[in-house]
């Protein structure tokens, strides 16, 4: 089986975007005047201190929050102009937290996303697709397990499989590497690269600078006070910008294509 869904190439344009905490007019200003163009095939990482607005920005792009000012345009239309069914086929949002109040198996969780965007498929195909995506994320053996009995990293992989299975070309992943061990972080990197090679776009919020470098072609660094730097990864992920955003000093080592980041921590007892 192949990826099965042909992502329709579409660009994402943020123009003079302003966002406030909680998506209300009174909240703290998180982002002001952010302009960003993400083209098909690009992988963007979102970086910034806790509460800087990474999740809020992802929710705004998902269409869940109206921006305070500015516009978010996906493809040929503003985000608010799409109907939610049409939007579901264009962007997939993978939140940080999931609610599993009732017993449900992992493959059924993934199948929701398949069925929602491809209702014409028969039940067998939907189940096959769901199991296929779980296998992609090394969770094939968990397919029949109750999601409430999975470990944090296993649940995260099921969530990622759900987002990919939705078949929308724009992936909005909120801290997808949380709870993931090294092997699965590398798996995520490989799948994201394949996704963008197929003309999909990804926006990924992460905390680990080295992982960010490995995942991204482009980066957006928020400072939580309204400021933002964005562009190709090597122009954004600089010692000066990172130190200014996080308020810690960081040392960089360039090693061929790889840039290593080391944040100064206190040593000794």
């Amino acid at each position, binding site marked *: 089986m192949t990826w099965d869904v042909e992502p329709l190439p579409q660009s994402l344009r943020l123009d003079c975007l302003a966002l406030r905490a909680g*998506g209300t007019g009174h909240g703290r200003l998180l982002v002001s005047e952010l302009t960003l163009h993400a083209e098909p095939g690009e992988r963007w990482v979102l970086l910034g201190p806790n509460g800087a607005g990474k999740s809020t920005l992802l*929710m705004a792009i*998902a*269409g*869940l*929050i109206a921006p305070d000012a500015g516009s978010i345009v996906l493809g040929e239309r503003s985000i608010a102009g799409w109907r*939610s*069914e*049409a*939007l*579901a*086929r264009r*962007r*997939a*949002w993978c*939140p940080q*937290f*999931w*609610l*599993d*109040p*009732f*017993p*449900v*198996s992992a493959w*059924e*969780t993934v199948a*929701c*996303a398949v*069925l*929602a*965007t491809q209702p014409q498929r028969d039940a067998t195909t939907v189940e096959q697709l769901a199991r296929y995506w779980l296998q992609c994320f090394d969770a094939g053996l968990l397919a*029949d*397990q*109750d999601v409430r*009995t999975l470990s944090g990293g296993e649940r995260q992989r099921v969530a990622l499989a759900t987002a990919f299975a*939705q078949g929308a070309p724009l992936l909005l992943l909120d801290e997808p590497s949380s709870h993931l061990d090294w092997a699965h972080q590398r798996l995520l990197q490989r799948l994201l690269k394949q996704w963008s090679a197929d003309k999909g776009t990804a926006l990924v919020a992460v905390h680990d600078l080295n992982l960010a470098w490995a995942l991204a072609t482009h980066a957006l660094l928020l400072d939580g006070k309204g400021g933002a730097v964005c562009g190709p990864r090597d122009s954004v992920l600089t010692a000066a910008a990172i130190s200014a955003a996080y308020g810690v000093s960081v040392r960089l080592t360039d090693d061929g294509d790889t840039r290593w980041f080391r944040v100064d921590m206190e040593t000794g007892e």
Partner: protein
Amino acid sequence: MTLKPPPLMLAVLVAVAGILLAFSVGLLSGSSGWGWPTHDILWLIRLPRVLAAFGTGAALALAGALIQLVTRNPLGDPHVLGVTSGASVGALLAILLLPVGVPFGSEIGAVLGALLSMTLVFSLAWRSMGRGLALSAQPGTVVVLLVGVMVGAASGAVVSFILAVADDFKLRNLVFWLLGDLNGATLWWPAWAAVALSFVLVWPRAHELDWLARGDAWAWTIGVSVARRRRIAILAACLATGAAVATAGSIGFVGLVAPHVVRLTGLRSARQLLPFSALLGGVFLVLADTVARTVVAPTQLPVGVISAAVGVPVFLTLLLRRRA
């Protein structure tokens, strides 16, 4: 823990067998023991009562399953919406204030009470339901639950007041009504009609109720009209509850437990959970009512006593055995 649903055919067969068993037991046992009843007793007394019991149980179980899905709360049941208590107030007021012998007095009172509390819950919770999206994964429907509980508490106070001022003769009627009793069930079809109408309302997009359970915001991002689905489901649950209470008074336990028992068998998706919960609730209440009217015959016990006395231990056994 792996989850494998049972084959659907097996589930259907068990359900049909259960219905046949419940109806034959219900129709063949009477206050004088087992046996084929006379024509009049069968058609005018036993059959309407068995049908009323089945419809009431099905309505309560369906309402419970819907409320659990929509509020993402495994403890959801019709009482939570405050509709049961509202209907009780209406019925009790009718019993208290109307002269004896007014036809369908308490039934009409119950329907009015149910409608009134439904409207109250709806209008108070409307803003939060209308806006719809809770951005965190936290339950977005806490407001509905809290409003329901508050309306229920207010109704409970009114019920206590009515009981305090009622005279001894009426008190007995009132108490039986509060305990849940099918003895006074004169019409069997309103509960059936309410169940049918509720199914018509929720069935076309029932699978989306499963998606709603994973969080409002996420469900919206995969294309679900979150606010509309939830309003329709709550309306259907209120209808079913109101009809059940009007038929048989306030019967606890069925709405909470029937969906859980169905889930324990592995039928978990809404398209399976809703119909099988309704069938189980119906079968259970027919059997409970049969026990209630025969076990200490000729005295008839309120069915609420039996449903709790049998159901609670059965449910706890199932639950705890599964966990171990």
